[in-house]
């Protein structure tokens, strides 16, 4: 076997593997990748203002700001991040205790800052 034919065989093998992966990967992704929840912050509210998670479920929060820097803070769930406008902040959360949690903006954002909150429900 020449060097060229060896390369051709290897390339064919790689193509086969790639095509198998292309078929298999949607299934793998559906089973293993966390659910994504998009949250938008703007003065002085979060949208949505309530999300529901399952205990033990890993979810990815994608949070963005439409105006100024905000925060998202929930001490019992270990969430404490700034949300800077112009980029998406990603957090992965796996709640281990069921309950209803209040999330607040903890980066002062103006006169209505004290009322900027959302609810995170974790069900059994």
């Amino acid at each position, binding site marked *: 076997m020449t060097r060229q034919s060896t390369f051709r065989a290897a390339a064919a093998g790689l193509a086969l593997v790639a095509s198998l992966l292309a078929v298999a990967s949607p299934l793998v992704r559906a089973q293993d990748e966390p659910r994504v929840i998009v949250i938008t912050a703007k003065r002085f509210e979060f949208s949505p203002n309530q999300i529901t998670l399952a205990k033990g479920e890993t979810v990815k929060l994608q949070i963005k700001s439409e105006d100024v820097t905000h925060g998202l803070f929930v001490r019992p769930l270990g969430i404490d991040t*700034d949300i800077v406008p112009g980029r998406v902040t990603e957090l992965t959360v796996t709640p281990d205790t069921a309950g209803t949690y209040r999330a*607040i903006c903890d980066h*002062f954002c103006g006169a209505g800052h004290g009322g900027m909150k959302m609810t995170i429900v974790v069900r059994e």
Partner: protein
Amino acid sequence: MKKDLDRRRFLKIAGTSMGVGALYTVWPSLGRSAEAAELARRLGAKTGERPTPFTFAQLSDAHVGFDGPIGTRALEKAVATINGLPRRPDLVLFTGDLTHDTEKPGEHAARMSLFKEISGRLQVAKVYHVPGEHDAGLDGGELFRSVFGPTSYSFDHRGVHFIALDNVSRAKPEVGAEQRAWLAKDLSRFHPTTPIVVFTHRPLFDLRPDWEWFTSDGDDVMNLLAPYENLTILYGHIHREDHHTIGHAQHFAARSLCFAFPDPDKVEDKKAIPFDKDQPFKNLGLHVIDRTTGSAAHADAVRVQEVELAMNEFSGTEGFNQVLKPATF
């Protein structure tokens, strides 16, 4: 044993505590006995400044500019009450939210000027301030510093070391590494028995984190302060009186001069207590105590008018029982 009892007695605090803050009398009995004079001498030798009796007051959360029914009346009344005291305090400490924020050009500066004009009527030797998030959260403290100077600093007064801490200017509820390093250096020259008063805006412990009643690096700050046995923390932000003892530290919150929040242990949502037009100063009003008899004698003496008056034997003064504890003599 008798000596210990005597010491405890002469260290007892005289306190006229006002709900808008508290008037503290420090070292009330020093000089009245040979033992007290000896304690003062020994404390002075340890701290570099011999303690002598004095009083100071804490006021908080005036929110000048807030669109509410009280306006600046409670602030003006507090100033008038302090000026009317038979013995005026040496110092007045304002623990933040002097103003309510606004983004209307020039308006926040006008509110800060109005606060300064009203508080400038205080006829006391010295007035100190720390910012609240409504003063400094949007501009990193730039306006506050232009009017009042640094947002964190320290000073000594008659044997007590006072420390102003800023836990709002970073927009988040935090003191920050740079200020903590400054605090560690500031504390390093003091003996563990030195009476220390920290005044700041937000609580330095987790009082109710989901109401933003906490400081994220409060534990780090308190670890720096932990070696000091006579430690009092005064703060505002929560618009209600509160007292917690954590380790050596006594944490006290003063009422607001604007509106009141409810007991966080009794309600889920942080909503201001509704205004009562028949009792406009309810939950804001002056709170006066008589250290010895619980009678209204001192209340009459300060001539509190149109202000809720509550008698409470110990409110606002337990910290100074702790401050004055001669821990390691």
